[in-house]
């Protein structure tokens, strides 16, 4: 890990219509890190990721990625700069085959030439996808779809990967395997910012964490310091801490 910052988000405000979803959100991610964004439903985690990839236009604030401001660029240009996002709910193309889903992951000019090499790498990480390559995306199980979503996000050979709730609705044993693979992806040089509702899991899997509540960052620090913070339980009621 170096000290070089790959992503800096500063004072982000975002709205859905007249509803303000983000209030001055700031965070940064250094090259090679795994950073997690924790919070309850509706805390603004997904909105924050969506601002980075341009799916949601921030009303104020800046998003600097490798020295360039992303906040006014269209999504397809941001993806072509080496950012990828594994969407919430997986967002698999149900009527495309597994292979076609993966090919689309390498749609950008930047990544299209490396497609065949990347697909080999994805099949190595998730052998089941290789077995299922001719099946429709919609016919896969939840866990397989999540693997496909991650594999597809990897196909663009990204430098920064944003992952949204990869554990949602999956069995613990599947979640374990997915996080193991995420570690592998990270040690292969990909910086990762992931969103997670499960606090214990987040702290365990990341170098640093940000805690969000009602559209604001309320806490941040390394996993070890955060574990001691009792606030984390207050910031996040409901599930186990």
């Amino acid at each position, binding site marked *: 890990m170096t000290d070089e910052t790959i992503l800096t988000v500063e004072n982000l405000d975002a709205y859905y219509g007249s509803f303000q979803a983000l209030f001055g959100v700031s965070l940064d991610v250094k090259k090679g890190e795994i950073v997690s964004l924790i919070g309850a439903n509706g805390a603004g985690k997904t909105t924050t990721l969506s601002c980075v*990839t341009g799916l949601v236009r921030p009303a104020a604030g800046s998003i600097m990625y490798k020295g360039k401001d992303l906040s006014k660029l269209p999504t397809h240009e941001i*993806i072509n700069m080496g950012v990828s996002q594994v969407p919430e709910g997986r967002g698999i193309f149900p009527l*495309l085959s597994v292979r076609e889903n993966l090919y689309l992951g390498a749609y950008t000019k930047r990544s299209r030439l490396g497609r065949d090499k990347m697909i080999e790498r994805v099949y190595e990480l998730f052998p089941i996808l290789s077995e299922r390559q001719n099946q429709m995306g919609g016919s896969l199980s939840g866990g397989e779809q999540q693997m496909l979503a991650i594999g597809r996000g990897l196909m663009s050979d990204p430098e920064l990967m944003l992952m949204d709730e990869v554990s949602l609705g999956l069995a613990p044993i599947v979640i374990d395997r997915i996080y193991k693979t995420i570690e592998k992806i990270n040690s292969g040089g990909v910086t990762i910012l992931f969103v997670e509702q499960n606090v214990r899991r987040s702290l365990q899997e990341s170098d640093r964490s940000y805690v969000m509540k009602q559209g604001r960052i309320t806490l941040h620090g390394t996993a070890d310091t955060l574990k001691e913070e009792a606030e984390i339980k207050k910031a996040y009621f409901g599930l186990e801490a």
Partner: protein
Amino acid sequence: MLGGLYAVVGLGMSLVFGVMNVINLAHGDLVVLSSYAGYVFLTYLNVDPILGLVVIVPLMFALGFVIQNFALNRVLTTGVEPPLMITFGVSMVLENIYLIAFSPLSRGITTTYVTKTFPVGPAYIPLVYFLDIVVAIMVMFFLRTFLSRTYLGMAIRAASQVTRSAKLMGINTNRVYSLTFGIAIAMAGVAGVFLGLTIPFTPQTGGTYLIIAFGTIIIGGLGSMLGTLLGGVVLGLTQTLAGTYLGTTWETFVGFLLILVVLTIRPQGLFGRKAT
């Protein structure tokens, strides 16, 4: 045999609806635009309209691209009505341009080969009908190959399934929409020239084609290319038979009747998937 062309028109409509969720009310009028273009080529430039396709199809593609890119893309996020109103507006403008430029009289593209027939068993089939079905199958085969084999085709299918994910793949969805509309209108262009060769048209014919496109999709079932082809053929045959045995005034009536019957008995279409 006209049914093949109906299917090409219907496929363009269902492509646009499937990808952009836009009901293109001007689709029939754009078909007629191409018929008039073929007419202009033959009558004023003395060029065979089939040869004219080389110019007409790219122009129709460009027109479709422009309509989507500069009008429809701007209102896609604002709900269903604004795109509907735009296509309705395009339809009205086109119909009135036809009225001014070509008068309300019926026109036809009359080439030397249109009236030729050749024997098939005991019957004589007009050559132009044979051309119609061959061209229709070629266009559909081309569309199918394009959608399944190329990156852009894959992107079009992706954008029609999960728009948000398509964007996250780095697909410029607005551009994909414009290209899709261009392709649909180019297909309408091919169909328009051959329909013009086969049957006469007036400035109002677009409305009939629009209904036929709807009918083809309804009978065949949305989302199945083979279904649309068969739907077009069924509708075309029904109309032709009704025209022959009951008189041409019955054509449209029997066509509508068929659509109603299919809607009642099999709402997902003869060959469509059941809605889930």
